[in-house]
Every structure is written in structure tokens, then in C-alpha cells.
């Protein structure tokens, strides 16, 4: 735990819009009409005014936000941990208890957003006061910090001690009740800003954002930039926007189609592996199985993409296209994908291969593209790049989607698949629910060789790979 505290200074405040919201919550909690009813709380023999119980806080949050007790306690705890409410009893523990424990609102002077970041000097003065009052008997981490600070800002130590003495003297003038309250307020503030080791640091932020203007890639506002902006705005204005009602229909339709396939919404058969430890569901829905499930085969009927993206579906599509003598379309599409997502160094090679196989006059697997697209593509491959086949690929994709796919869905092949598809029976509830099923490991994809060797190697390495010891980079 560094003395310096959280990094970032004023910058960090921007990263915590939650503080402003928490403060508004605190203010409404103190509203004379709708806020928490405050009363005097007894702390041993002293009476502390304007206090409330943990229960009061939890109840108020439940009423105000319509949330459960669990959520209310959670939220209340966060408020306390951020130092906006502090406990009077056991003030070293910033925890909200849903009982008669007394709490108070932190004075805005000490609000995290007001007094941030806490300075070393302030912390030194605080520790010095404690040190004097307790005659050297500080808690361990405070003692460590005290010594560290003493070393670090030794040159101002006289000032520190002087301030500490002055503040203690002023405090003695106050009533006991006030003194207790001010001590608690101060302590709560420091618990938030210098949490003891092991306690969560609520002020901790991730790496600073918006901090490196020098390393920011500056947008050169030159001619090109403005040309692009004009183009963007022109396109934006010309774009056809779909009507809300049509968009809504889209969501409703998608929802209706897919909810039965959503394991979290509708469960899955035979059972969800994460819940029952039974991996049958995964085995039955593996990329290649002999008999796919009914849900899976049905899904191929939703849209062409579903069929194409499922390896099993794609294989069935290929079978169908072979029957129609248009299998080269799918192969062409796959080759174009390989180009689009392949290594930069292989572009020329892949483009050439595609040309030879699919586009060259007399090619063995010649694809039927319209002449305009063909002309453009042939011209384009003179200077090959990874998107050179885009137009041709799109053309063939649309052909498969608009032409072959509807026929596929009506075909005997597909109807047979549907008829033969299985609906797994639900896993019967185990007789002894307390005995957990053994969780078997599966071969890592990193072990499997490309298609062909897959099964052989997979079986060989079906034992769980031993945990590999950590390697330094």
C-alpha cells in the first residue's frame, strides 16, 4: 500500500461519475420530508444527534428504489465503503449492518469528490495527531506509514507536528459529542483514502484514460480529413433509415425464432453441462456428428447463414449442391473466404489458385458469374489484393442464398434430415443428487491436427493434459 495513494489526481475524478450519483442519493436520503428519519443515537454514555440505524438505511433504499433487501444492503455497503456514511460503533470497519447499529452522514467537507486526492501532508498531520493522542501506540500499518512519511517529508515535520498540536488543542474546546463525531468523520475519510492492508481500495482505478496527448494519434485536419467528413455526412443523409415499426417486427421475429434455441432461456436437452456436469449435450452437438439434433437441423432453415456456418450444415449443403451440379459455387465461396482472411504473404498464391480453378476459361470448376462482374474481377486480379474477389464472392453467395438454399429446404435430403434428427431425452434426475458426477476433460483443440488426422490424434490424447508449469515470457 503506497503512501501516495491512488494515481491520477484530478483526472481520476472524471472516471468516477458514480460519485456524483452517490452524492445525489445521499442528499435525498437527508431530505427533511422524504429522507431517513434521524434521531439521537446513544453511544455508551454520549448522545449523538442526527444519526440513524443500519436498518433505517436499508429500509429507505428498499422503499425508494423498489429493490430487494439483498440489493439494498449491497448498495448501502458501497455507500459506506466510499465514506459517505460512517458507523459510529466500530468505526474502523466501513461496513453496513442491517440492524440497530448507529450511522451518520459524512460531512461534505470530507466527501471523496471534494477532498481528492488526499495529500501526504494531510495524512501526516492526521497520523501525528493520533500518535500524540495515543502516545505512540498506533496500529501497525499506521505506524509504518507514520515512519515512512517521517522519512519522506522530514523537512516539513516541524510544521506537521505543529499543525497536529494546534488541531488537538482546538478539538479540546469542543463538546465531547462533537469531538467524537469529528473524530469518526476524519477516521472514515482516511479509511477510504488510505485503506489498511487487506481492505479493498474503492478509489482504485484502472490505467489512466485520456492521459497521453503526446501518444494520441492526432487526426490531421487537412483536406483529406474534410473530404472524408463531407463524404460521411453525405452518405449519412442519403441513407435510408428503416421505420421503427419494421425494426420492431425484426426483433420480435428473431426473438420468436431463437428463444427456443437459447439454452439460458429455454434450457437444453438432455441437460446443460454446466448444471449437471453431463457433457452429452456437447457430444450430441459436436461439429461433426452422425445424427444431428432436431433443433440444430431446424435452425438451418432460419436463414442461409445458419446453414453455411454450421460445419455439418455446410457438408449437407455440399451434398445437395453436388446433386444440382453447382458444388463449385460453395468451393469458390470457401476459397474466397480463405483469401479474405488469409496471410498477407499468400495473397498472390491464393488469387492465382482461385483463378485457375474457378475463373479461367475452361477451368475445371468454372463458376457462373455475370459478365460484368467477371470482367471487373479479371481486371482486378492483375493487381491482386485480399478483397479482389469480393464482388464475385458476393455474387455467388447471393446465388446460393436466393436460388440453391430455398430448393435445399424443400429437398428430400433436408426433409430426411429433419425426420431422422434426434430429440435427446431429458436427463433423469439422479437418485443421489449429492454425489457429483466426475468432470472429464476433453482434448484441447491445440492438440488436434487439421481434418483427417483429427480422430486419430484426438483419441491418443484424450487424457487430460497435465497442468503446464508457468513460463516466463
Amino acid at each position, binding site marked *: 500500500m503506497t503512501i501516495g495513494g491512488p494515481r491520477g489526481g484530478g483526472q481520476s475524478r472524471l472516471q468516477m461519475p458514480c460519485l456524483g450519483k452517490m452524492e445525489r442519493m445521499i442528499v435525498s436520503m437527508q431530505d427533511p420530508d422524504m429522507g431517513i428519519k434521524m434521531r439521537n443515537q446513544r453511544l455508551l454514555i454520549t448522545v449523538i444527534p442526527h444519526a440513524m440505524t443500519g436498518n433505517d438505511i436499508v429500509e429507505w433504499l428498499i422503499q425508494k428504489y423498489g429493490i430487494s433487501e439483498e440489493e439494498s444492503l449491497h448498495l448501502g455497503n458501497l455507500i459506506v465503503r466510499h465514506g459517505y456514511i460512517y458507523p459510529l460503533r466500530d468505526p474502523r470497519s466501513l461496513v453496513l449492518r442491517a440492524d440497530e447499529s448507529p450511522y451518520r452522514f459524512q460531512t461534505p467537507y470530507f466527501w471523496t469528490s471534494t477532498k481528492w486526492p488526499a495529500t501526504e501532508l494531510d495524512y501526516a498531520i492526521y497520523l501525528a495527531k493520533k500518535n500524540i493522542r495515543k502516545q505512540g501506540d498506533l496500529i501497525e500499518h499506521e505506524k509504518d506509514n507514520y515512519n515512512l512519511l517521517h522519512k519522506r517529508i522530514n523537512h516539513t515535520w516541524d510544521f506537521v507536528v505543529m499543525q497536529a498540536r494546534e488541531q488537538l488543542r482546538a478539538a479540546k474546546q469542543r463538546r465531547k459529542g462533537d469531538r467524537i463525531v469529528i473524530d469518526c468523520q476524519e477516521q472514515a475519510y482516511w479509511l477510504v483514502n488510505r485503506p489498511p492492508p487487506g481492505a479493498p481500495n474503492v478509489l482504485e482505478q484502472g490505467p489512466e*484514460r485520456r492521459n497521453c496527448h503526446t501518444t494520441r494519434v492526432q487526426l490531421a485536419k487537412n483536406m483529406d480529413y474534410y473530404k472524408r467528413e463531407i463524404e460521411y455526412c453525405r452518405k449519412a443523409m442519403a441513407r435510408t433509415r428503416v421505420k*421503427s415499426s419494421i425494426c420492431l417486427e425484426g426483433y420480435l421475429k*428473431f426473438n420468436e425464432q431463437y428463444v427456443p434455441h437459447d439454452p439460458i*432461456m429455454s434450457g437444453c436437452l438432455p441437460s446443460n453441462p454446466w448444471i449437471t456436469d453431463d457433457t452429452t449435450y456437447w457430444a450430441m452437438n459436436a461439429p461433426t456428428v452422425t445424427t444431428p439434433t432436431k433443433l440444430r437441423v431446424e435452425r438451418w432453415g432460419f436463414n442461409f447463414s445458419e446453414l453455411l456456418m454450421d460445419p455439418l450444415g455446410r457438408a449437407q449443403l455440399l451434398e445437395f449442391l453436388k446433386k444440382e451440379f453447382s458444388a463449385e459455387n460453395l468451393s469458390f465461396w470457401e476459397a474466397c473466404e480463405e483469401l479474405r482472411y488469409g*496471410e498477407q504473404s499468400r495473397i498472390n498464391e491464393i488469387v492465382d489458385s482461385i483463378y485457375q480453378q474457378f475463373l479461367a476459361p475452361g477451368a475445371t470448376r468454372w463458376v457462373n458469374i455475370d459478365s460484368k462482374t467477371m470482367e471487373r474481377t479479371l481486371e482486378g486480379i492483375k493487381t491482386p489484393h485480399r478483397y479482389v474477389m469480393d464482388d464475385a464472392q458476393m455474387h455467388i453467395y447471393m446465388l446460393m442464398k436466393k436460388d440453391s438454399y430455398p430448393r435445399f429446404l424443400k429437398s428430400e435430403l433436408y426433409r430426411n434430415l429433419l425426420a431422422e434428427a434426434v430429440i435427446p431425452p431429458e436427463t433423469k434426475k439422479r437418485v443421489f443428487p449429492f454425489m457429483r458426477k466426475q468432470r472429464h476433460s476433453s482434448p484441447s483443440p491445440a492438440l488436434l491436427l487439421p481434418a483427417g488426422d483429427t480422430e486419430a490424434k484426438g483419441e491418443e490424447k484424450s487424457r487430460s493434459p497435465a*497442468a503446464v508449469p508457468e513460463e516466463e515470457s
Partner: protein
Amino acid sequence: GIPWPPAEMAWQEVSLFAVHQVAERVEALGQFVMKTRRTLKGHGNKVLCMDWCKDKRRIVSSSQDGKVIVWDSFTTNKEHAVTMPCTWVMACAYAPSGCAIACGGLDNKCSVYPLTFDKNENMAAKKKSVAMHTNYLSACSFTNSDMQILTASGDGTCALWDVESGQLLQSFHGHGADVLCLDLAPSETGNTFVSGGCDKKAMVWDMRSGQCIQSFETHDSDINSVRYYPSGDAFASGSDDATCRLYDLRADREVAIYSKESIIFGASSVDFSLSGRLLFAGYNDYTINVWDVLKGSRVSILFGHENRVSTLRVSPDGTAFCSGSWDHTLRIWA
């Protein structure tokens, strides 16, 4: 989004999902129960990012102390571990083949590590340095293959890289501040992605031309997370302004806000259930809120983590989701 609202649009209601329209057409959600089914312990510090393997059970996670771990989260076994030379590894991704992972953070780079089980091989030895930014790496994702990576950075740009050569294929300029997140579109023609940043903007990009296609600016604070709706017609965002929002690409505007007065901490990470009916969002108040995407209401709140939830992803087959937290653990929920 619409650069400025023309007069005839002024009458449109803010939310697409007018309650009366949706309520009668969509079934109510029943009792919703999700529990932690696995807890992955092993990181010695804040977990910052995670990603699923296509095999639906393995995951990669990265943390503040530089550790990157690959787990079989079903058995909770750790299968690989590597320590990066930098701290705050804020981004990590699993390659589509399952044979490699990518990660980066305060080193301003994105590196790819092939996964090996060979005990004689040091995983770090085969490390490939792919992306180079001038500020921290906040997000990375492989495209449809192991050979291309898309990155987002604190330097305000996104970039597409060729893994093998480390060559920059395309860069995306337009954000006015740090880019914090990105997501690739699931569209069948696979050519766009969305990014979110500290300029409160979500921007949709054409991967081929590097141009921004659409942009949306309705959040009040940094956008920490963006995720496409499964149909690809919309995307959700999570922000430090404590709200999540849904933006429709065809209507070209925000169509729903997911917020509650009692939720005041930022949403750090969002993802949809398989059907897109549910939106899971992890927050800086240690909780996960589950939203009914169509009705706009909160379905459930999940407690369990003891510090910020920093990352959240639904598994590839939608059977569970994984959350990672500053409390050093990852949890699988189902």
C-alpha cells in the same frame, strides 16, 4: 447516427420498444435462476479480460500482474500459463482454431502465443509481436481466421493486422479519445465492426476501406463495452454512465436504454444470450444485472463477486456466461 434530427423526426418517441407494443407480443419471462457453477481461482491479481474458445468450454483470461491463463473451465484445470512482460493485460482473445491466444495491455502491443503442450517448448519462445500502438491496448479480437487480428487502443485508433508478418492492413481513425472496446459483426458478409471509446461515441467501421459508416453518441460517459445483437442488426453498449443502451443500425439510432435509479456504477462489460433476449451486464459495483432486451426491464441481479466485474462473455453455444473480476476470480454462470 443521424447527424442532426430533421424536423419530421422530432415526433418519434425515444424508445423503439414502446411498452404497449412489446408487452402483448412478447411472452413474460418466468422465474429466472442463474448460479455460479464454476469458480476459477489462480490469478494472483485483478482479472481484466477473458475470451471463450470455440470448443465452448476453454477460456483464456488475463490479469493486472501480467499473467495470461488458459483454462478448461469445465474441469477448472489450468492448461497453459504465460507471464507477459507488462502489467495490466487488458485484452486477450482466443484464436478461432483454438491453437493460439492473443493478448496485450500497457506494453502497447498485441502479441500472439501459439498454444503448445510440448513440455520441452517454452510458450513464450514462439511469441509473435503483431500489433504496435502508441498507447495501451484495450481490446483485441481475431477475425474469421487465426491470421488476422483487430485491435483497439488508448491512442484513439483501431487497427487490423496480418498476424504472420505483423503488417498493418488497415487503420481506423475517428475516435476523439481512447478506444476501449470493439466487436466484430456477425453479419453473413462479415465486413464491419463496432468500437466504443472515451469520447462517448460508438462507431461502426467498414473493415475494407477503413471508413466510419455510422456513429452514435448518446452516452454521458466512457463506453467500456460494445457487443452486437445476434442478428447483427443492432449492438449494445455499456458505459461509465451506469446505463447500457441498444443501437439499431437500420433505424440508425438508439432504441433502448437499460438503466435503474439504484444502479449508479459503470457497466464494464456486456453480452447477449444466444437469442438476444437477455443482456448480461457486469458492473463496477461488483454485480451482474440481467436485462430483458425487448421489455427494457431488469430481470435479475447476480451477486457473488467481491470487487468490480471487469469482463463478461457468453459461451459460444449460449449454455453459460463467464465473468471475470478484480477479486482475482472468474465465475461461470448457468
